[in-house]
């Protein structure tokens, strides 16, 4: 592993770790508040899957949603801050390749996402018993989901020239897509039209596949979720690498 990549990765991890209250603890707390409120409000509702309470159903979805949002936040905020303050120069002057940038930003975001996801899951365990059906599925979807959103965060970070544009990307694209991906409900409970719309949202497959890892049950076949999410990740990675290689909005 080359030294430049290792250093950038270390820097990106330290960047969020130095403000871990904001980047790790706060998202866990927010997810727990969602869990407390929704579990209380929906306590009388029908379980999404037979034998699974609403509280149990909610925990994996919330963990995944938090992971996705934080993976996106990590790469996008790092890039936009560096671009606006000008310190992006420090990584543009050295002999780093587009693969170094991609790998370091992506892995740092995955590390943050996994820490946050684990935090939500562990606190959730104190509130409800959550079975584990397949550790492989859990890890696979956690990794693919975090990597997908990390790549999307790099694209947004490169594209945005100001915080306002970044906020628009986050609030009008990422937030609705994660909230409407079946975190709080099973899409089986939706009318057919909205079920069809949900199937167009790649985040839905991430949540569904991740949840399968816990309950062994899902809205769509696990193989389809894996194929859709892997394909989405590869497409986003291709776009990200192309932008980084071309120096899009980095080198004039």
């Amino acid at each position, binding site marked *: 592993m080359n030294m*430049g990549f290792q250093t*950038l990765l270390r820097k990106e991890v330290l*960047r969020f770790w130095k*403000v871990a209250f904001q980047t790790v603890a706060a998202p866990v707390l927010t997810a727990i508040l969602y869990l407390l409120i929704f579990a209380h409000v929906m306590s009388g509702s029908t379980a999404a899957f037979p034998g699974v309470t609403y509280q149990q159903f909610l925990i994996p979805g919330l963990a995944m949603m938090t992971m996705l949002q934080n993976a996106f936040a990590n790469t996008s905020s790092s890039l936009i801050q560096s671009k606006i303050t*000008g*310190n992006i120069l420090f*990584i543009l002057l050295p002999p780093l390749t587009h693969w170094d940038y991609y790998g370091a930003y992506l892995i740092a975001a995955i590390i943050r996402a996994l820490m946050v996801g684990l935090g939500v899951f562990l606190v959730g365990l104190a509130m409800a018993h959550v079975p584990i059906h397949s550790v492989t599925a859990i890890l696979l979807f956690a990794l693919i989901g975090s990597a997908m959103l990390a790549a999307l965060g790099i694209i947004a970070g490169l594209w945005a020239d100001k915080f306002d544009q970044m906020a628009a990307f986050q609030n009008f694209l990422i937030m609705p897509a994660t909230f409407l991906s079946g975190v709080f409900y099973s899409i089986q409970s939706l009318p057919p039209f909205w079920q069809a719309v949900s199937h167009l949202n790649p985040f839905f497959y991430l949540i569904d596949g991740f949840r399968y890892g816990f309950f062994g049950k899902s809205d769509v076949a696990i193989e389809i979720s894996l194929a859709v999410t892997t394909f989405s990740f590869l497409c986003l990675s291709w776009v990200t690498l192309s932008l980084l290689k071309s*120096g899009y909005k980095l*080198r004039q």
Partner: protein
Amino acid sequence: MTPAIEVRAVEKRYGSFTALDGVSLSVAQGEFFALLGPNGAGKTTLISALAGLVRINAGSLAVMGHDVGSDYRAARRALGIVPQEIVFDPFFSVRETLRFQAGYFGIRRDRALDDWIDHLLQKLALTDKADANMRQLSGGMKRRVLVAQALVHKPPVIVLDEPTAGVDVELRQTLWSFVRELNAEGHTILLTTHYLEEAQQLCTRIAMLKQGRIVAMDTTDHLLNAFSERVLRVKLAAELPAGLAELRIKQSGAWHHFAIHAYQDVEDLLARLRQGGAEITNLEVTEPDLEEVFVKVMNK
């Protein structure tokens, strides 16, 4: 010997604006070279092109023989750039910042690196700020950290883009003394500055840019001799004696200016003034200066 910097017919356009219009220059290894010009002349664009931050429309650039496009990794390893703008990463301390910068260039963190960082901090009077967060430093200190960042990977070619803007006199002296040392050790220095007296004192060769074109390039001595002259200024109690007016190049109040080519001319002029009955109340000899050269070249 391979030139430290080779710029050939470089063109850079931003829409209809031409920032660099066929710039060519070559800087030899070990040279202390100045790139001068008014704001917007293209100095920073040229430096950015060398660093790979700006993509050129035509021509080629090489650092220590490595093309900045096709062999960018080797070119960037050979180059240390002190940017014009003060930028810093607010998350880290001075030492962390330098360790990261060295790591980006492939330098492993070990005792040797820490010793080099300590040496840089000492030379730049930053030792007591090594563990301070970058946010706590003054503007001048942040600028010196930028210098240390540019040097941390020991590049043979160092580019200083207006490094003393906003730096106080004492720190400026510290910086120049260190840069002189680096140059004496064999590092090539490319300097841009608006403080022309600094360029005159430090640089052996100078290029002047105007509207994206090189309008003058020569050794500092040649430029001074070609565009500026040594002047004898005398202040007289009364009028200039007849017969000397044709020798005068300028008059401002009671001060009369005469061009001199050798110090013998001073003696001759003073003798003629005495013979003409002039009473000298003050006199001084001014050396050729780069500011005059710069103004003349830019107004050509």
